[in-house]
């Protein structure tokens, strides 16, 4: 199977790729969001404790 056939997904490409793409996007967004919240909470907690 060459790359063209793979991307075409037997004609279902416009369903398969958005579904997988959306899933990847949501997973990535959740990961980034969790790390960001952790970072912000760490900075805020340090400030509360009077640290630089």
């Amino acid at each position, binding site marked *: *199977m060459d790359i063209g056939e*793979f991307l075409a*997904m*037997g*004609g*279902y490409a416009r*369903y*398969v790729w*958005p*579904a*997988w793409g*959306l*899933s990847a996007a*949501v*997973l990535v*967004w*959740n*990961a980034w969001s*969790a*790390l960001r*919240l*952790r970072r*912000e*909470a*760490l900075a*805020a*907690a*340090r400030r*509360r*404790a009077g*640290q630089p």
Partner: protein
Amino acid sequence: MWTWIHKLGSPPHAFRILERLAPWLGWAALIVILEGAYWGLVRAPADYQQGEGFRILYVHAPAAWMSLFVYVLMALAAAVGLIWRIKLAHAAAAACAPVGASFTFLALATGSIWGKPMWGTWWVWDARLTSELILLFLYLGYMALRSSFDDRDRADRASAVLAIVGVINVPIIHYSVEWWTTLHQPASVTRLAKPAIALPMLVPLFIMLAGYQLYFGWLLCRRLQGEILRRERSAGWLKEIG
């Protein structure tokens, strides 16, 4: 063992354990999900009826499974927090909610996308999708109740009651929706059934499911760390963290 559990309730200790656990879960998740994607998109054979379109199963089913798993976990954590008054358990429940809602949204969106080529419409009131929709409402209600309280302690305990009531209702809702869809069964509407199961088609499913579980474990670690920090008063132990 009880000393271990008791120590786990102490924020600095819990934070440190999560810090050490997270990278293992995170990297394992990445590897397993990529492996599952390879198996699901490339190696698994095409379905007899649905062609390549059935590959959406490999992102739809794990999302649906996780959406239910996370809700039950959230309710359990909330119950532990309510009954034994363990703040960390409440923090865990709070950390679970948005993640579970994300999985539910994914299950609905991928299910809808999958339905278009299969049934010709963007939405059908089939048992699985309808149950997922109601589950989304339960998550949103939980998060809405949480955010309506200024007092975090009251938010924790009130939402815990709601989560427990909700989790008892989940089997009832599931059963009633199943019953409801079997009543008016035109021949064209079928469940989003897994295709005729040949083992090469099942393997990517299990791999993706394992990957999603590891990913959720990592996510819970990081979100829980954030929750712990937000709730912590005395912060002397923060000096040691990177």
